[in-house]
């Protein structure tokens, strides 16, 4: 009895990693040269921001909510990163317009050029996330509607900051994202670091157990004397934090900002969490799995292009992968139950 349960669970836990390995093997078969230092750099570059966004989504899913605004939030952070964070208020397009028209002097005081403004705004973004968590908990609101509304708020703010794509990412982020590490490509190192850090934070710390427990049995957590409000705020703030890292890493790769840059991240991040073995309710999540899921989704695009399948089918393939993995999971669950 115990043995069979164990193997079904092991199988489930290994499913994300197996999917990734199968995909890598297929890519190697089609295009052996892709499995190289340069190849991985190219294929997995974008996996870093997606992995961060997936971890952010995972934090929200842990407490049985869903964040439909993460994509526009990542876009917002990217816009802030390309403006306020690199050149302070002076880097905002409308300030530049005012300078050009002569309303403002060509050289601005230091306070207008300090990147601290960007840091401040990004911290406020995390604060907004924490407040959202509180609002959703206190008013017992459906998170999908609230975050859907927030997606428009972030999009509106991004457009206000950066009406047309542009700006300039801070140099330090750019050089970090294009780091040439010895032997192992930077994206792989980054993915491992993200996975391990999130794993320690959520799975290994003592408060992490409480955070996850709140997804599994909120009543028991409350009965043991913990504040569910604090738990929700913490999880949403964490989502805001990881979402911020996603936006910053993304703008480091693209070097300029765009309000619409990450719209698809909302769906990708949800798919990544699920692919990584997370479940929608019950607080069963896996940070390592989520990062693997994000990598799988990113590699699926490369795989399709090696297969000479038009890029039109990229989103479709992501949907298909999601459905197949969920179907496999249902099958494993049923087999487990039958025994």
């Amino acid at each position, binding site marked *: *009895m*115990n043995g069979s*349960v*164990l193997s079904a*669970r092991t199988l489930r836990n290994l499913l994300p990693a197996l999917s990734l390995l199968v995909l890598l093997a297929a890519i190697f078969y089609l295009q052996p040269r892709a499995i190289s230092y340069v190849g991985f750099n190219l294929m997995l570059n974008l996996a870093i921001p997606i992995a961060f966004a997936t971890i952010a989504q995972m934090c929200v899913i842990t407490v049985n909510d869903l964040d439909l605004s993460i994509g526009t939030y990542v876009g917002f952070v990217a816009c802030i990163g390309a403006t306020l964070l690199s050149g302070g208020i002076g880097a905002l397009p409308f300030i530049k317009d005012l300078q050009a028209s002569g309303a403002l002097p060509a050289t601005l005081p230091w306070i207008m050029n300090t990147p601290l403004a960007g840091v401040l705004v990004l911290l406020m973004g995390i604060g907004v996330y924490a407040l959202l968590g509180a609002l959703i908990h206190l008013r017992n609101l459906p998170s999908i509607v609230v975050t859907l509304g927030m997606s428009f708020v972030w999009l509106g703010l991004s457009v206000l900051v950066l009406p047309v794509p542009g700006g300039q990412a801070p140099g330090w982020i750019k050089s970090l994202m294009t780091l040439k590490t010895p032997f192992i490509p930077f994206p792989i190192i980054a993915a491992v670091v993200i996975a391990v850090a999130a794993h320690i934070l959520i799975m*290994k710390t*003592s*408060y992490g*157990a*409480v955070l*996850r*427990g709140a*997804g*599994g*049995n909120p*009543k*028991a*957590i409350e*009965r*043991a*004397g*913990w504040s569910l409000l604090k738990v929700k705020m913490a999880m949403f703030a964490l989502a805001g934090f990881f979402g911020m890292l996603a936006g910053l890493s993304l703008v480091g790769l693209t070097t300029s900002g765009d309000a619409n840059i990450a719209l698809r991240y909302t769906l990708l991040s949800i798919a990544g969490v699920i692919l990584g073995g997370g479940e929608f309710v*019950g*607080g*069963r999540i896996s940070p390592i799995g989520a990062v693997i899921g994000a990598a799988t989704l990113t590699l699926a695009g490369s795989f399709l292009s090696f297969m000479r399948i038009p890029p039109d089918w990229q989103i479709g393939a992501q949907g298909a992968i999601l459905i197949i993995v969920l179907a496999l999971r249902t099958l494993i669950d049923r087999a487990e139950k039958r025994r």
Partner: protein
Amino acid sequence: MASAATPIISLNGVEKSFGAVRALRGVDLACHAGECIGLVGHNGAGKSTLMNLLAGVFPAEGRIEVDGKDIASRYSVATAQAHGIRCVFQELSLCPNLTVAENARIMHASLRGFGWRKRAGKLILDKLDEVFPGHGISASDIVGDLPIARRQMVEIARAFSVTTAPARLVILDEPTSSLDAHLASQLLAYVRSFVAKGGCVVLISHLLGEILAAGDRVVVMKDGKVVVERPAADFNRTSLVAAMGSVAHDEGANAATADTKRSETEPRVRVAADRQAGGPELIAHQGEIVGLAGLGGQGQSEMLIRIFDAAGKNARNVTVVGGVALVAGDRQTDGVFPLWSIAENITISSLRRMRRGPLIDGAATEAMAEDWKQRIGIRTPDMNNPILSLSGGNQQKALFARALGSDAQTVLMDDPMRGVDIGTKQEVYGMIRAEAEAGRTFLWYTTEMDELKHCDHVYVFRDHHIVAELSRSELTEEKVLHASFAEVA
């Protein structure tokens, strides 16, 4: 009793009402260090309420003293925990997505910092080793993957584990319900050693052997009161069953009526006997009221749902002739549509009969609602008022009206009289009797002896099996209780 010292907690004339239902009507109880109190009573006697109260889950009226200080008004879960009062609830309060060690950490706030996982694991495993030697549980097991018995073992061990606050009084509510005989005896042995070291245990169980073996003192509850309180040594199984039964046997006349001849009519419902358990098959004929008895939660509701789902289908082992309707006992989860009016709640099961063209015939539904308002006596000025404007008893009447007003030949009743006042009960009993005489079949799950007396035939359930079958003339409270409490070993 056990000692002259101040009790850990003592209750004096404690009362608790939920709406119109008085769950506790003046309970006196003192829990001393170094004793095990066996708490028994029939369903609805107030055991669970009492236990929640001891754990500080909700407040009550009356005097509650902890360590000699009256803190009735300020008593809460936190106070209870600070004084070392722990509770093992029947519904598991573990987080299924966490490991055994992590669940220990949820309970003990002091388990943090570097190496907390190791300490939490050691804490819970040491306790498991102590209570259930050879338990086979690992600290890194995910609780949701464990079989139910092991989950219960973890929960029990967690309640006895000690970090900063002591464990002085542990309340165990049906702790052995999913443990086998071996594990149960391990637990009882541990309870005795815990008590010997100066702890106190309140043990709630329907297995009377356990109560008699482990308890120093037996407290019998009935109708929200403590009716008997004596040393366990004064009891044996028979006298304990007698103590739980009704004091006076009224309504003896009812039981004397002759059995209806069962084979006269075609059976409406037939559930094949469980081959493994070897119990009788369940049959309900036209015009019969069939009772499903036994303690609460022994599979009666599941049986009703099985029959409900089998209607109109080719189900294995269950044959149902004609339509069925169900009267829910748990109104909130199974019965009421909270946003609707009384009329909408009553007519939902009969809408298909009341159509004109594609639309629902408003006049017909209104007529039906008014008709049932009169027939079953729903106390409301307007049937278009929200259902939640009614008292619990009247909501239940609306649910009866929904089932009786449908064209179903068979009506299943899932302990529908919970929390209903006596006047309403009498009205509904009469109505059920009249409907049965008109040819309807009733399957009635009830935990109340008085209601079984209205039944033509009774099946007693234990552990999801039918263990006894009693015709109307055979029916006595003793027989039902004996069948309900019978023990394997």
